[in-house]
């Protein structure tokens, strides 16, 4: 195996993140007189470079005896994650400006990003598991980052316990798969799948591990609590980057490794997606805290994404990746506004947003457009995303599922519109005052809004993603 230049190019994104990690580590260790402002700017620049770098030097290939593999789609997926991280970094500046642990925050954040990269590139269950753990254990620390808040520690505790439990079950599943197939390598596993009950059980355990991370019902229960308790930035990271990365892996694993189980996982996803949509929606209806609300809404979104996965075609995988991109823009748009408001006023409840439009029209529009995109309303990108997801599902003949999903979209519209109603229609004696938006969150919001408006309408984005998606 030629480990020379390939070694650098294939792992370019990982190298970039590691480099940033070390730069930050050196700063942490080395310099004393540093201001948060400078660090934040530096990080933003570094992340931007990381993002830009991701778009150069595409190459497919494998390293370390199939433990690390990469291709155009994976690079694209990593780029989406980098983009999301960059946006989150921009948004978090107003929250982190006065935080003592800025560097630690980014160290933790970027190590989870690195974990996700390895997870996405994993060609073997061990690497997958390690990537998953690397991407989740530091997240627990991150969700405890509002050190003075009780809710934050509670969230962190819930997350680490649930995640450890899920890791335990996942490990049981992996061990059984190892026991029944004799290998941890994806390519070898897929050759040894024979469909015995134990293997299916192991497979279900594995799926439950994924389902936990993407918070599919009934493995989602941690989601709302952790989202609510964590700092807004971390919540958005949870809901977009963490979920997105696991979805990418899930997609790859199902489409390539567990291809022989196509019928089984299709049915499993059917059940999960119906449950996820319905339960997610039912809970989202009655939320008052915006973060908690978005947690459930993101649960419901997962239900739709699962439908896209059931498509089991190139269009299916393309639609999922495409949707994650769109979902990143939309959710980060919403979180961007919420984190800004939360950082500046401490308000996080839907009621506080009544008559928000009167004082903050621009922010209101961004939030509204993001919500419309989440709800799948044209002309926002969310419409296209959902359309293609369900279209992929319908392509597989799952019309019942598609019908349920389509009707669930109506329910979901209800709660999104409820917020829009609060913003535009309700009156409020004590509205949120006019907010001055700092530059970097503003940039983030502009990126998100532009993404929401353009990603869908410009057909090229989808074509591009489709062209490198995996078939079935």
């Amino acid at each position, binding site marked *: *195996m030629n*480990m020379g230049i390939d070694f650098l190019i294939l792992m370019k994104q990982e190298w970039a993140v*590691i480099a940033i*990690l070390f730069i930050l580590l050196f700063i942490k260790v080395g310099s004393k007189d540093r201001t948060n402002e400078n660090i934040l700017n530096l990080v933003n620049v570094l992340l931007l470079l990381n993002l830009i770098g991701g778009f150069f030097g595409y190459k497919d290939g494998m*390293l*370390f*005896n199939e*433990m*690390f593999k990469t291709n155009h789609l994976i690079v694209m997926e990593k780029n989406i994650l980098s983009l999301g991280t960059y946006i989150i970094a921009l948004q978090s500046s107003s929250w982190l400006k006065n935080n003592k*642990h800025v560097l*630690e925050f980014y*160290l*933790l954040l970027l*190590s*989870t990003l*690195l*974990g996700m990269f*390895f997870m996405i590139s994993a060609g073997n269950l*061990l*690497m997958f598991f*390690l*990537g998953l*753990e*690397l991407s989740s*254990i*530091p997240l*627990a*620390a*991150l969700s*405890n*980052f509002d*050190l*003075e*808040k*009780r*809710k934050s520690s509670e969230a*962190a505790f819930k997350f680490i316990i649930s995640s450890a439990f899920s890791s335990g079950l996942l490990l049981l599943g992996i061990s*059984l798969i190892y*026991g*029944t197939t004799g290998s941890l390598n994806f390519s070898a596993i897929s050759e040894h799948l024979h469909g*015995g*009950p*134990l293997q299916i*059980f192991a497979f279900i355990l594995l799926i439950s591990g994924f389902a936990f991370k993407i918070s599919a019902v009934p493995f989602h229960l941690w989601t709302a609590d952790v989202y609510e308790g964590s700092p807004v930035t971390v919540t958005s990271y949870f809901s977009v980057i963490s979920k997105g990365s696991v979805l990418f892996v899930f997609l790859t694993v199902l489409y390539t490794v567990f291809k022989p189980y196509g019928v089984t996982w299709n049915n499993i996803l059917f059940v999960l997606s119906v449950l996820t949509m319905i339960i997610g929606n039912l809970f989202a209806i009655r939320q008052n805290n915006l973060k908690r609300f978005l947690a459930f809404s993101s649960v419901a979104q997962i239900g739709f994404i699962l439908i896209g996965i059931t498509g089991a075609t190139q269009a299916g995988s393309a639609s999922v990746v495409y949707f994650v991109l769109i979902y990143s823009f939309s959710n980060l748009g919403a979180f961007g506004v919420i984190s800004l408001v939360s950082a500046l006023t*401490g308000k996080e409840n839907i009621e506080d947003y009544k008559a928000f439009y009167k004082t903050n029209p621009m922010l209101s529009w961004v939030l509204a457009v993001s919500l419309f995109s989440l709800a799948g309303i044209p002309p926002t990108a969310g419409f296209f995303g959902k359309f293609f997801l369900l279209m992929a599902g319908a392509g597989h003949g799952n019309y019942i599922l598609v019908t349920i999903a389509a009707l669930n979209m109506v329910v979901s519209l209800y709660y999104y519109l409820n917020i829009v109603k609060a913003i535009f229609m309700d009156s409020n004696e004590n509205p949120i005052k006019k907010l001055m938006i700092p530059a970097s969150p503003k940039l983030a919001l502009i990126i998100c809004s532009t993404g929401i408006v353009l990603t869908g309408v410009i057909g090229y984005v989808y074509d591009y993603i489709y062209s490198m998606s995996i078939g079935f």
Partner: protein
Amino acid sequence: MNASVIIFYILSAFILASALLAVVSGKIFRSAIFLLFTLIGTAALFFWMGVEFIAAVQIIIYVGGIVVLIIFSIFLTQKSGDEMPKPLRNRSLFSVLALIFGFTFTYRLIYEYGFVQTAHKSFNVKVSEIGAQMLSTKEHGFVLPFEVVSILLLASMIGCIVIAMKIKSPERTDIQ
């Protein structure tokens, strides 16, 4: 029935019994001690299976690290003699039912699967080989996971420091 088999049964009984005691014992300190026993028992089981390295790692990390950590944290958060709060009855009931079911179900599947042993092949694990493979980039090399885990350890270290570091201001500014 040879000695090896007997040892296995004794070890199994020891592991399971101490594990059970660890999760039902009313006093937390005892729990911790039984956990220690379980971990040692598992280490012994690894010895029995001939993977000495794992056994050693088990002893060093679990017994020497995690259990000590746990005991320290018990000291930090609790008086040693305290009775722990009793489990909720409903939940215990459901848990027992679920777990008995889960266990029978899982074990039934395993049992029915009937793993075909290829035990006659030699299985010897030299520590040097493990070390070589751990740092090898070639076939059967585990350097990448090794590096990933090291980053994970670094990250969790940072996390621990940030979280557990003493907060200077005694006043908490909770919303609640």
